[in-house]
């Protein structure tokens, strides 16, 4: 059963080599995302060989932000759907990020259309090591993209640090993605800065949650205006973004009589409210 799954997936990869409809890289150093209004706004797509910062709108949107970065990483790997030509993806995480965001789950990357076999995960002890490692990795032109993930705010992630990353990325042409869930935007030399939040998905049959949908706000852009928001969906099979279908009217999943909330939980919340006030 497992063996046949591997054979099937190899055959699918073979087929993807032929009729591939995924986003193609062009020579201009731009990476089209596949979402037409956004690509038009960005004059063609995200710039390769630049630093892009991704923040979560709320600490609880960390899942959406992580997913968005993984999707960008998959796009930056290129390879037109064939797994053999994908460039390796280097993902650096601090130990703190692993504690707060959770342990990396390779099957989840495969579910987004990525190939975990081309991923190298580096767990570093602290933010300084993260920045040093990222700067070294960005000098290596063989990589598709470098993702640096760190949680919270830090004085170490200053203008000098981001300048170093931008320079290294510019020389090699490798795209640098800085994932900062729970962080506050600070002055940096990043080409673009994004804020990501989860968005309701288009439901599947039986009211099941559908394809990953995210709300995206361009907070800052070095080469042009910013401040616009988009809603988009990730198309795993074509490995590109697309415009989100509007979600229909929503109602609670279950209806009928309910059990009351446990008293302890309520009381605890009231207490914290009064303390906060």
């Amino acid at each position: 059963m497992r063996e046949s799954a591997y054979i099937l997936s190899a055959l699918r990869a073979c087929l993807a080599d032929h009729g591939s409809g995924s986003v193609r890289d062009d020579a201009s150093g731009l990476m089209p995302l596949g979402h037409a209004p956004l690509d038009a706004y960005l004059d063609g797509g995200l710039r390769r060989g630049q630093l892009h910062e991704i923040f979560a709108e709320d600490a609880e949107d960390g899942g959406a932000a992580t997913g968005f970065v993984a999707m960008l990483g998959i796009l930056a790997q290129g390879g037109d759907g064939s797994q053999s030509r994908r460039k390796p993806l280097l993902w650096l995480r601090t130990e703190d990020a692993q504690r707060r965001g959770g342990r990396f789950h390779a099957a989840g990357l495969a579910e987004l259309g990525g190939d975990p076999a081309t991923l190298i995960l580096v767990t570093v002890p602290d933010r300084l090591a993260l920045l040093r490692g990222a700067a070294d990795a960005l000098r290596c032109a063989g990589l598709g993209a470098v993702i640096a993930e760190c949680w919270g705010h830090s004085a170490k992630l200053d203008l000098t640090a981001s300048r170093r990353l931008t320079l290294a990325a510019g020389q090699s042409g490798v795209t640098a993605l800085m994932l900062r869930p729970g962080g506050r935007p600070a002055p940096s030399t990043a080409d673009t800065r994004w804020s990501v939040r989860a968005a309701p998905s288009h439901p599947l049959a039986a009211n099941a949650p559908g394809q990953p949908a995210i709300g995206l706000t361009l907070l800052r852009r070095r080469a042009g205006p910013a401040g616009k928001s988009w809603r988009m969906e990730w198309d795993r099979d074509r490995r590109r973004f697309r415009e989100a279908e509007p979600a229909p009217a929503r109602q609670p999943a279950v209806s009928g009589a309910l059990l009351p909330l446990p008293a302890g939980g309520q009381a605890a919340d009231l207490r914290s409210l009064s303390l906060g006030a």
Partner: protein
Amino acid sequence: MRLMAVNSVAKALGLDAGLALADARARVPDLAVHDHDPAADANWLDRLARQCGRYTPMVTTDPPDGLLLDVTGCAHLFGGEEALAKTVAAWLEELGTAVRWTLGSTAQAAHALARYGMRNDRAMDEPVAIRRLPVAALELDSESELGLRRAGLKTIGAVADRPRGAIAARFGAGAILALERLLGEAESPLDPDYRQPAVRIARRFAEPVANSDYALAVLDDLVAEAIVQLTQRDRGGRRFEALFHRADGRTRALRVETGLPTRDPAAIRRLFDERIETLTDPLDPGFGFDCVELAVPVTEPLAPSQPGLEGGHEPGDDVAELLDRLSTRFGRDRLHRFIPGDTHIPEQGHIAVPALQSAAVMQWPMPEPGEPPVRPVQLFDPPEPIDVIAEVPDGPPYRFRWRRKLREVMRYEGPERIASEWWHGSRDPLGRTRLTRDYYRIEDAAGRRYWVFRHGLFGREKSDPRWYLHGLFA
């Protein structure tokens, strides 16, 4: 409590191993006693054996307190067998050890002569010297030894003169084997602990060098020499080991590893620099290094290549070099690649192998086209407990509280049931309780998607199953 070992001063006062501590104290009231620590002794012996690698590659420990060196073919480098033995003994005495040494034609003979012959010398006539040894040199059990002595056989020679059959009949074949080994009639080969690496180059200094920069410059020369040797054999090194022997007998070892075989001196030097930078205590010359050694313990075939002629750099090459550098800096256990694990348990769905180690690329199964992702990219470890309100105890969640905030379930899919892998027996990945998990993919009013599970089947496995949040979807 009994004495395990005594030094020469204590011996002169009439104390010996095996004496009760109370008796010893009665005889010598101000006796200095330390706790017996066999592990530390073994460790020390092991370290000495490793150091003896500078005299001969064939070294083995002879527990609890012996070292066996096979000096065949090495003695002339030190001016003869006896000169070599005296050099080793002098070095050990400098370290504060009491040494008793001898040379023998077999390992067993050397062992017996050193332990029971009581001389720091080479026996003039080895067979005679062995025949004069007490029967204790056979190292039989105490009963057999007593039996031999009661029979009037006091020396090895006396036992050897008896018919072998009679001795075997009374003391067993083991006694005959021990005797034959001691007399050199049966083989007693040495099993050296330390294998000779493929390439090993040493540079000895006439005077200890107290400048670590100079020692590192010497290491550069050694790397260049090693590259020449590797090129001649069409091999590349996967692991390099620099040993800095200090004058006080300590050795500092620096080890670096590469993911692909290499013969690039600049790359090797960069890895050593990276390693030196990560040292918590710097390379301290102490009273000086008296020898710098470079070993290449692991090599692999590497055909010569001419990048200039063959059209530039290999594309994967610099990535491999980057991984080597990062592995050296952060440690090889911090860089991982993933291969699929053959299990349905989510947290064991992949096997993380060090990036330096993995060679084979495994194909990951592709997800079903048209379906949404059913696994999140990151999993909470451990899963975070949540308070769930459900319509029926074994139904989907209606609303839940995570991080003190109430969330309405708008859409859900499930359950996806993941049961224990009972065939693993006591090594079940779900632990001893083996509770079945029912996973739900749910979406709340804000559009956030969660992966939650009920821990245990309601009614059958648990009366009040707990709920956990295992991950967040994009």
